């Protein structure tokens, strides 16, 4: 999973809250001023750390798309005095899991270690962030792997649908570009570009750290200084313009010789800090949220057997907010599926949820939150997401109140504003019957 997808999941997860007993979040501030949020859990000799710097692939310079992503593949491929194989051998011999990931809005990292190797693990993280080598062999090797990955995804119907929708949403904006870059831009990236990225982007001022597991606050504080204090105090200034999804009402068909059409659709959603976000979240759970209970699931799958998967989700990013839906149906029946989705979209706008639907959505959303504490890594991801969204260290105790506070009146008002069937941008990949395209696919995918 990309960090972007991961953080999206995290954002959704954050919409539910924990009972008081479950998690005690400590704010640990090191002598040098590095802050981390910690949940101690000494049940297993394992430590999980997640980190993120604000600013991700959306900041890749024009023509250098894929820069953040290439860096993310190379930080653990040699650092300090250790060349790539020596670095990887240490990770492997000590069973330390270290990885980095470029999202559109963040550059993230993840460390998992056994307690007995804690100091070495943090030291390898320090080296990876502060002294990556970018030797020629690993640079070319990881570049080749990314190029192969881009080629592998080139004809994948889900990927085509997703990136075509993004191109339509964000023409001329960094959000419209692929995080991985293009074959041309990936080929053009140099070791100097990589070094410049590390020097400019990985600043302590945008760093967020979350730690879960077998470590105390007293042990963690000095480790934070050792690991992060040598990083630049501040990242270079950078800005991504705020924007809104474009392309309202367009229908695009990307012709592919496959038996099932894949549909991605959507329009503008709500930003995470919008006061109506919780109402939108609850309403969208009713329309197309997870589990086996949603209007779309009932109409498209249960009643008519038109699809295995049908869904809708809110996708707020730092500079634009989306509401996205999807379905996959046999070519001959995809027109019917799309018609049903449009109908439900319009019906939700017109009359909103029923009181009963709202009540059961709240029961599920408030009750299911503790289920997310299923591993130390997942809890670390949650803590990181809360920090990135600036929700406050006590958020997990307040969050159910936000859900409970959504009234039927709010829900209906927000539904009316949110769901705009005539504004849906629709991408269909396959050989669909009964779908009329209103325009050509944007360049790069046909």
């Amino acid at each position: 999973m990309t960090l972007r997808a991961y953080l999206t999941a995290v954002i959704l997860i954050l919409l539910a809250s924990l009972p008081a007993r479950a998690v005690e979040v400590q704010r640990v501030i090191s002598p040098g001023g590095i802050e981390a949020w910690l949940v101690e859990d000494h049940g297993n000799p394992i430590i999980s750390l997640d980190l993120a710097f604000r600013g991700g692939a959306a900041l890749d310079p024009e023509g250098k798309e894929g820069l953040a992503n290439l860096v993310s593949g190379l930080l653990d491929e040699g650092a300090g005095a250790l060349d790539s194989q020596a670095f990887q051998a240490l990770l492997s011999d000590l069973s330390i899991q270290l990885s980095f990931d470029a999202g559109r809005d963040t550059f993230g990292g993840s460390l998992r270690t056994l307690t007995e190797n804690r100091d070495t693990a943090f030291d390898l993280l320090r080296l990876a962030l502060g002294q990556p080598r970018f030797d020629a062999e690993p640079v070319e090797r990881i570049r080749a792997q990314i190029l192969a990955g881009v080629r592998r995804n080139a004809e994948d119907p889900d990927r085509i649908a997703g990136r075509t929708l993004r191109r339509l949403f964000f023409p001329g904006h960094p959000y419209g570009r692929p995080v991985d870059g293009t074959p041309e831009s990936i080929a053009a990236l140099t070791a100097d570009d990589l070094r410049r990225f590390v020097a400019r982007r990985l600043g302590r001022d945008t760093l967020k750290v979350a730690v879960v597991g077998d470590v105390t606050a007293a042990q963690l504080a000095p480790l934070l200084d050792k690991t992060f204090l040598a990083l630049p105090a501040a990242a270079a200034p950078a800005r991504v313009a705020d924007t809104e999804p474009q392309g309202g009402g367009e229908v695009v068909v990307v012709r592919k010789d496959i038996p099932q059409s894949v549909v991605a659709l959507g329009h503008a959603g709500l930003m995470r800090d919008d006061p109506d976000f919780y109402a939108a979240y609850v309403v969208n759970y009713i329309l197309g949220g997870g589990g086996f209970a949603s209007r779309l699931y009932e109409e498209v799958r249960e009643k008519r057997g038109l699809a295995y998967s049908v869904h809708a989700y809110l996708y707020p990013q730092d500079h634009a907010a989306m509401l996205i839906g999807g379905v996959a149906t046999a070519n001959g029946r995809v027109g019917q599926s799309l018609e049903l989705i449009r109908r439900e979209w319009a019906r939700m706008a017109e009359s909103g949820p029923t009181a009963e639907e709202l009540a059961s959505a709240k029961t599920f959303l408030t009750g299911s939150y503790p289920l997310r504490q299923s591993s130390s890594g997942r809890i670390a991801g949650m803590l990181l997401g809360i920090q990135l969204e600036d929700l406050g260290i006590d958020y997990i105790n307040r969050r159910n109140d936000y859900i409970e506070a959504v009234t039927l009146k709010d829900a209906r008002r927000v539904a009316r504003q949110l769901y705009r069937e005539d504004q849906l941008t629709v991408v269909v990949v396959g050989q669909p019957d009964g779908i009329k395209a209103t325009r050509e696919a944007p360049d790069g995918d046909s």
Partner: protein
Amino acid sequence: MRAAAPMHRLALPIRAGVLTLVLLALFAGRPQAKVFEPETFTLDNGLQVVVIANRRAPIVTHMVYYRVGAADETPGESGLAHFLEHLMFKGTEALGPGEFSEIIAANGGTENAFTSSDYTGYYQTVARDRLEIVMKHEADRMVNLRLSDELVDPEREVVLEERRSRIGNEPGSQLWEMIGATMFLNHPYRRPVIGWEHEIRRLSTEGALAFYRRWYAPNNAILIVAGDVSAAEVKPLAERYYGVIPRDEVPERNRVEEPPQHAARSVTLESEQVRQPSFSISYLAPSYNKDAGRHAYALQVLDDIMGGGATSRLYRALIVEQGLAASAGTHYDASSLDLTTFVFRASPRIGIEVDALEAALRAEIARVLSEGVSEAEVTASKRRLKALAVYARDSLSTGARVIGAALTTGQSVEDVEAWPERIDAVTAAQVNEAAKALVRDTHSVTAYLLPKPTT
């Protein structure tokens, strides 16, 4: 929000049984960590119950595994085990279609189900005080499923759409089906779990109910509860809800066996949907349960040495040193009721021919056969594998999934718990012997996933 220590640390009881095990291990002079430390008991009707404590959060995962999967279907009805799994959500005498799911959601729970060749599983994750609710209804649908064509017909369409998503739109999955059907000449593992499309179309309500009545019974099931719970708490609930279900006749799982195989096989799929080529070599391999040569543990060490991550032999040779591959690795899973496969795979860097990469990969296989693995490689690998057992304890569901798969494929809880010891006992000589027994061209399928040449 500051606290000296999270409260749940204090909730962890130190059980006498665990302490005894640790002491025994110490006295044996070789302290060896167990894996999940589960508690087990069996009800009078034959239902085996496993409880795995994980006290991090006040939640439980409740799973029921049945010892039946796609390999137990009658020829001509492929996909039936999986189809029945979908239909198990359609209601009972007591609950209407989808009502169990509504009850779970109303209690803030999540759920799903899965089917493999050897087992079918259903699970819910809920707050610990909701365990009884999901137990009651899971027990209900063990024997009281109600189906009608009206409910079954649209679900068949759902499964056909699932097949289109997973297989029809995915050339790599289509090739995987061909590999299975070629690897196994006679054994039902040759059939895809989801079923062949033309046979899914013919699956009927009566057929699903007959399969259900034949296989679903407490004495053919395993109940696993993982999370903030003890066996003492689970036992009375299990007795109340599952214990009242009578034992039933369940057929032996006597699957047809593979004949001797005499020829190396190869399959090729060319598609316009493929831009990045790849290939694999699969060898027929022992599982824990069908392991006459006692190679299953040694093969896991071989799997790690050859294909486990960025310091493995294939990664170093094909990707780093020779620069031929973009990716390379191996796959082996011994949790299978009958014979399984050991797979080598690789995908070339752009500009490299598949043939050249294949030759290099076969050279690495030949090298391990002629020169063997070193003691140092085996020692490092065993340390990595044993660390995995520690990481496996972290997640709420991992233990339940591992034990569920084990108990439905001929393994015992003791086998799972002894895994670190048995891995630790593997020697370089055993790995080399296992590799020699594994690599037989006559028992292999080489598969190519290639772009369609433009003419």
